[in-house]
């Protein structure tokens, strides 16, 4: 079977049936994303490896619970990665201040070969859209957002870290998220 040609949902169905090659194919497709997210959050390649293992083993063990109507596979995996990385930081009392704590701008490097061309294009476009949207945020909004996203800091912890009033931090994060939503999904808000 040519696993590269299968979409993510098909791979998940095969993983639920304990098809190891399907897990390998999903790994080839998204390990870089998962590992990069974990590395950016923890700043430690050992921890990032541990998180990457946890994420893919969770996919392996919980594949039968995945429901396509609840979101895309990659969305599910990126959420698991973020929560696992932040949990690990909290559990171990790590405050990796030296981390990059930011997203990157510009064009994404090459993608793994383990993707069907159509999927490859979709992922590349998604990366580009997110990067472009983030680049349009004012620096102070992006900075506050990065503390919440990468470190899992609360409003008050961010205010303390940035030496800014709590209300200012709340406003910056809300405006950043609303702007990203508007740019990425061209959404309107219910209170408008």
């Amino acid at each position, binding site marked *: 079977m040519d696993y590269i040609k299968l979409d993510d949902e098909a791979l998940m169905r095969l993983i639920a049936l*304990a098809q*190891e090659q399907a*897990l*390998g194919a999903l*790994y*080839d497709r998204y*390990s*870089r*994303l*998962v590992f*990069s*997210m974990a590395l*950016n959050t923890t700043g430690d*390649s050992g921890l990032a*490896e541990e998180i*990457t*293992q946890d994420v*893919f*083993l969770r996919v*392996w*063990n*919980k594949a039968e619970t995945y*429901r396509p109507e*609840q*979101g895309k596979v990659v*969305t599910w995996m*990126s*959420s698991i*990665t*973020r929560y696992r990385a932040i949990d690990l930081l*909290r559990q171990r009392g790590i405050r990796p201040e030296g981390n*990059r704590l930011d*997203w*990157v701008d510009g064009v*994404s*490097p090459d993608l793994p070969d383990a993707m069907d061309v159509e999927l490859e294009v979709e*992922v590349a476009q*998604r*990366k580009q859209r*997110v*990067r472009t949207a*983030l680049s349009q945020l004012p620096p102070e909004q992006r900075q506050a957002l990065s503390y*919440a*996203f990468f470190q*899992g*800091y*609360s*409003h*008050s912890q961010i205010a303390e870290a940035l030496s800014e009033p709590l209300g200012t931090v*709340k406003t910056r*994060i*809300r405006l*950043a*998220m*609303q702007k990203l*939503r508007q740019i990425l*999904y061209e*959404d309107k*808000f219910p*209170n408008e």
Partner: protein
Amino acid sequence: MQVTVVEEHFFDLLPAYALGCLDGEDDLRVAEHLAACKLCRGELERYRSLVADLPFAVAESDPPPRLKETILQRARQARGMATAAPKIPWWQRVPSWSMVSLVLILALGASNLLLWGRLNTLEIRQRTSLRTILLQGTTSAPNATGMLVISLDGSHGTLVVDRLPILSESQQYQLWLIRDGKRTSGGVFSVDEKGYKGMYIKSPEPLDTYTGVGITVEPSGGSPGPTGEKVLGGNL
């Protein structure tokens, strides 16, 4: 008839809720509101999708080449798929002097497991935000939906279900808390004419220590263990 009146929405707090950065009091207010407000739950999902898109913009690095094989090996072990060894009884393959060591290792392992369990409980109790678990309808109730919100210390929660089929008077729904294959009743309830019900759940043990929840159809008043069809379920 049960009427839920929602006077205020929390649109401004939902972005931070999706990021998980609300402080305790705000977090609790939003979670309680979400349990009763479909509009805000819809809004929250949009922000959650946004948060899940943000990793696409992190600086990229390749994982070490050996990591894939490590993961596949652990996956095989997790499902008992390790390469079958010749079937020689294990005690014939282990030198006698190592039996004592094996017993010691097992004892240490058991004590580590106990410690791990206690640490895990402590970690759960130190959570700073509420947990929300979405429940999925089964083939018996494909339109049904539900949500379980767990308090900070895990000792109680709120269950909200919607679009469950209306049952006869002789039947009720029963919530089951699942751990190690054992099912403990979390309460018995009926739904209104829209299939909706909101219910407070008090658990003798932290809800976070369970691995799953399920809702089944049972005779009115509930059963000691699940006997009827499962209509909703979710993993903790």
